[in-house]
Each structure stands twice: as C-alpha cells, then as structure tokens.
C-alpha cells in the first residue's frame, strides 16, 4: 500500500533527522507529563458532574459544558496556532515520480487527524459522558455528544493548519491573537456580551437535534477544503519561496565602516549577518524582552539594599546582547570558517573585530536601558560600573571561551525552539562569569559601603580596558592553539 510507504518514509525522516536522539530524553519526560495530565483529566471527568452542579445553580452541568465549548474553539485554535506541528513534506522528490500529487497532499492533510495528542480532551470527556450524559440523556444523545466533540477537534485541527499555512507565526500574529483572546474574555467578564450563553444554545442545538451533526461535519469538510485550496493555489514550489519575507537587502550600505580598515570590514559583515537572519533577529527580540525584567527588580523595595543582586541585574542589563550571543561568537562563522582562515585577515584583527562587536552590543544595551535611571541616580552608577566591568573583563572572557566551541551554528535554521549548536555547557560557563563579580560586590559591601565595592569593580574593568592589547594577545594565542580542532569541528558539523 502506497500509504504505508509514505508513512514509513515520514517515520524514517524523523528518526534519521539531526538531533533526534538528543531530543529523546526530553520526549520521554514529556510522555511522563502527558500520562500525569491524562490521569488528572480522568479524575476531573469522573467528578465533573458534581463540580458543575456545585458551580452554578442557573445552568445544568450539560449546559455549562456546552457553554465552555465555544471557548474551547477560541483557545483551541490559538493554542494550536502556536503549538501544533504543521505537517509538511518536501514535495519536490515526489513531483517527478509517477505518484499522484493529490495523493501526497491528502496524505499530509489527513496525517494530523491520527495524532493522539489531538484527543487528549477525551480523557476528560469520556468519564463525563459515561457518568452523566448517558444516564441522563440516553445513548443517542451521548453518541451525538462524543461525535460532535470529535468533529470539533477535527475542525480545530484543519482550520489551524490552514491559518498556519497562510499566516506565518510571527510577532504580529502573536500580538493579534492575544489581543483577540483578551478582548473576548473581557467582554464576557463585564457581561457585555455573553459568548457563554450563545455557546450553550449553539451546542445544545448541535447535540440534541440529529441533523445538526451533518452541519458540523460539513464545517469540517469546509476546513479541509480550505487547506486543499491552499495547495491548489500554490501548486508550484517556486510560489512558496516568493512568500518569504525579504529582509535580505538590509544594511547593504555600511560604507562608513570602511574607514576602520580590516576590523571595520569584518564588523560590517557581522552586522549584516545579525540583521539578515531570522534566528539572530529573534535572539535580539528576546533580549529586548528580557531587558524589561529590570522593572521588577529596580522598583521593588525588597531589593533596594541587596547590592549584589542589583549588580547582577545591572550586569545583565548592560550586557544582555553580549551574554545572549556569547556562545555564538565563533560558531556563527562555522559554515565559512575555512574560507575565513585562508583570507588576508590576521587572527588579531578578527578577534579585535569580535571585541568591537561586543563593545557595540554593550553600548547599545547601556543606551537602551538608560530609562531605568528614572528609578534613581544609584541605578546610573550601578549601570556605569557594570558597563565598565562588562567591557573590561566579561568581554574577554567570552572571547576566550568562544575558542572552545566546536559545533557550528547554522543560522539558516529558523524553527522556533531551535537549540542547534547550543548546549548546557554554555550555562556552566556563564554562571561563574556572572556570579563571581556579584560575589565580590556582596563581600565588599558587607564590610564597607556600596560605593567602595562599585569602585573596586570599576577599577578592575578599567584595568582590563587598558590592558586590551595584552589580553587580546592571550586570546589570539589560545585561538591559534585550538585552530585546527575548531576548524575540523565546524567542517564535520555541516
């Protein structure tokens, strides 16, 4: 059977993909979590009738369940939009083989229906049906009840697939969907318009009137048809490429950096790289988000006197980009590392350019977090000290440690939770880097006052800045020692 062939091929693709075995551990934990949730659902389903009767005297349990259904549609679609895996297949190899294109498309579209994750809700629904719906309303209604929920699940799945195919999951879609959900909840909350009431009527109609199920099945077919329409409109693979967002021509003109020689040339390449890849852009967005955490720390009186903690926050604020990109520093050149090594660039210039990039990161972060100074002049001194320390000490540490990387980072991988190239070792290194100065600050501030501790660290930072040439030489020597190991690691990783 041809379907079996396709199924086995998709299975093989997953098993033989990169990083399959690494994600197995996480998958095993997720399975355990899933079992726990299933058990909880079973219990809740079993006692749902009692819970609902106690909850509201106005509506029967059945009506309350129906009322919640429309929210399951809204939340279901939203949740699936972010979490549902869009089933895709690389169509090109199949296009020239004597296999019907419609067959392959149907396969992709129907595959999600068989995903057991879809039916998790039924752990809750089945006990509820058995316990309450069956004795109260009889077999016919129970069957219709379960069937309508199945159709609902299918509709959610197909409709979300369709939405995902049309709209890419990006910043704006998150914003719009969240706004939509919040407004619905708000409307319900202030009793302006009750979707609950509408839902009760709607789903009671669907369950109690026999022909209504046909209507629902019709909706499922329409959602399925929308997906098919998408594939019919985008028949040729080249159409998919057209739809990609084109931010490739960003920063084509950075001529002013040419004045700075080799270092300037490398910097311009790095800046273009940062802004032309989705993965680096998303790291920058996440950093911007993390910078907002300062509000929680700086405004809270609880933390006003723990200088150590405040210093940690200040270091993160002024060095956020540096830490987030810290482990990427050599690895992002991994795919063209050989080329880089044979060019007319001295290692010293290369590492200097990296240092300049970190310097630029820190300046940007410092400027962006300057609004925090409204919380008090103390914050300004903290930030200044942390800034100097970051440039004078942490920057070199990051450069030095980057020579221990052996796995390249593939910037073109743009999946949302893509950890390719990262490892827990990164954390093992970052933590001491962050905690050591915090420890120093804490120690000194318990014996003397805060200002002395700040000045000590600033002094250390200034020393680091003044000794730049010597420390860079250290990094260059380290790099040369590890050059061949790094290069072969990057070559293998491709």
């Amino acid at each position, binding site marked *: 059977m041809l379907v079996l*062939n396709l199924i086995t091929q998709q299975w093989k693709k997953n098993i*033989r993909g990169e990083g399959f075995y690494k994600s197995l551990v996480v998958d095993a934990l997720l399975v355990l979590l899933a079992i726990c949730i299933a058990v909880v659902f079973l219990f809740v389903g079993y006692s749902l009738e009692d819970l609902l009767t106690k909850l509201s005297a106005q509506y029967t349990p059945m009506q309350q369940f129906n009322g919640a259904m429309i929210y399951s549609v809204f939340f279901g679609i939203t949740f699936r939009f972010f979490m549902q895996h869009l089933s895709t297949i690389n169509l090109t*190899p199949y296009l*020239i083989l004597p*296999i019907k294109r419609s067959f392959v498309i149907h396969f992709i579209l129907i595959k999600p229906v068989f995903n057991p994750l879809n039916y998790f809700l039924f752990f809750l629904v089945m006990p509820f049906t058995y316990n309450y719906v069956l004795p109260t309303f009889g077999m016919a209604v129970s069957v219709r009840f379960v069937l309508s929920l199945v159709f609902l699940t299918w509709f959610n799945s197909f409709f979300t697939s369709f939405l995902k195919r049309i709209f890419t999951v990006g910043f704006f879609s998150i914003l719009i969907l969240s706004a939509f959900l919040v407004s619905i909840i708000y409307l319900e909350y202030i009793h302006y318009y009750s979707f609950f009431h509408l839902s009760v009527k709607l789903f009671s109609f669907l369950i109690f009137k026999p022909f209504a199920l046909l209507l629902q099945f019709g909706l499922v077919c329409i959602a399925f048809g929308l997906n098919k329409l998408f594939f019919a409109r985008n028949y*040729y693979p080249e159409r998919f490429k057209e739809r990609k967002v084109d931010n490739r021509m960003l920063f084509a003109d950075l001529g002013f950096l040419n004045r700075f020689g080799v270092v300037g040339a490398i910097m311009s390449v790095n800046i273009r790289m940062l802004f032309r890849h989705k993965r680096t852009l998303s790291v920058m967005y996440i950093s911007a988000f993390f910078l907002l955490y300062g509000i929680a720390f700086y405004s809270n009186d609880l933390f006003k006197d723990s200088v150590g903690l405040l210093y940690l926050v200040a270091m993160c604020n002024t060095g956020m980009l540096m830490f987030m990109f810290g482990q990427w520093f050599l690895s992002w050149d991994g795919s063209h590392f050989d080329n880089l090594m044979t060019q007319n660039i001295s290692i010293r210039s290369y590492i200097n350019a990296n240092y300049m990039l970190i310097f630029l990161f820190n300046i940007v972060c410092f400027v962006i977090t300057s609004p925090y100074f409204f919380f008090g002049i103390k914050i300004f001194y903290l930030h200044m000290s942390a800034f100097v320390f970051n440039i004078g000490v942490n920057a070199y540490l990051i450069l030095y440690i980057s020579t221990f990387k052996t796995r390249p980072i593939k910037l073109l991988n743009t999946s949302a939770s893509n950890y390719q190239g990262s490892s827990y070792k990164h954390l093992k290194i970052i933590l001491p880097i962050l905690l050591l100065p915090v420890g120093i600050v804490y120690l000194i501030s318990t014996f003397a006052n805060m200002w002395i501790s700040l000045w000590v660290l600033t002094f250390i930072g200034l020393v680091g800045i003044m000794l730049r040439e010597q420390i860079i030489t250290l990094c260059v020597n380290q790099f040369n020692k590890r050059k061949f190991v790094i290069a072969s690691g990057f070559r293998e990783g491709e």
Partner: protein
Amino acid sequence: MLHVKNLIKTYNGINVINIPELIIPQGECFGLVGNNGAGKTTLFRLMLDLIEPSIGQVFIDGQCVTRNDKWKSITGSFLDEGFLIEFLTPEEYFSFVAKLHKKSKDELSAFLNQMKDFFNGEILETKKLLRDFSKGNQKKIGIAAALLGNPRLLILDEPFTGLDPSSQIRLKRFLVDFQSQLQTTILVSSHYLSHVTEVCQRIVVLEKGEMVKDLKTNEDTLRELKAYFEI
C-alpha cells in the same frame, strides 16, 4: 512525443525562456547546450511541470503537462539532488521508485545488476543515506532511478558534470544503448560539447532563452559548436 508550443517564461519582466515551437519525435536523442544562465534547466523544469509557464504549453505524448500526473509514468528525469529523498538509503529509494513504476522485486534486482558496473561498488550495500553520498554518486543514483521505470522519455540535466571519467564513458554507452534498443526519447543538457556530439543526433543551442541553433549532428558539428562558443 514532446511538443513545446509558444513557451514563454518571464521573471521580473525579463523573458528567460522564449521558444515558439519545439517538436521532439519519439526515439530522438536531443542535446541542449548553452552558457550558464541560457535557460537549459529552466526549460527542463517547464517541461516537467515544476514551474509554471507564463505563456504557452508543453505536451508529452499529446497530454498537457500542467496539473496532470499521467505523463509521469512514462517519464524518467533527474535534474539535481533536490530530486532525491535524502533520508533514505539507495536500496530503499530504488524499491520505492520500482513500486511506483509497478516493477517487481525481480525486475528491480535485474536492473540493479545491470547497473553494477556503473555504480562501481560504491552505492549498493553501503548503509549510507542518500544525503551522505558525494555529489557524483548522488548523480549516479538519480540517473539510475530515472532509468528504472523504462521511461519513454528521459530528461537529464548536465549528467556528465561531476562524474569521474570512467562513469562518463559508461553513461554515454548507456544512453546510446537505451536510445537504439528501446527507442527512448532522451533529452540531455551538458557543458561537455564532445560528449553531447557523440551521444545526440540533434543539438540545440540555447542563448538567453531562445533557440539560436538547431543542428543535425555530423562530423562538423563539434567544430561548429566550438566556433560558436569561442566568441
């Protein structure tokens, strides 16, 4: 067998393919030459319904190729590595293609036996996935898969590029045999003018998407082609 009618493909306002008429009868071995960017690969993709023509149509055996699946059973093709299902082993890939062409296991093993010299022991029983093979070996696998279904129309884009010298000679022999014994229509594009003149009875030169020369191969063709490209 293959009929191209009024075919025009436009990208960004520029005609990358502009062929008013091209008829290739059954059993002809047709060579396509041209410099990079002339449109050879684009033409093949248009013939295989992988890109949409702006104007015009391609007919294989009387059927229009767009949005049609029936011509795929009589066509075998290999354009680039994107055509391979990269996470399969060669054996798995061949058996899948054989199944699609409704070939039995015995026919498949007989075919692979024939290909043994061509594969040179590097492809079968290596337990490697298709994506781990060298580019030349991937090409061999693709060509073999294209030949597997006993196609009446065979389309190969630059098959000689990347193959080692012995394999190039073997491939030439294969193509000549296929055409003479099975009357297969073969379309080949190549940068190797000498190979193309040896294998093909008809050679077309493509320049910026237009057919500028349509030659019947004889002893002078190679000289004529070289003279043309010397500019």
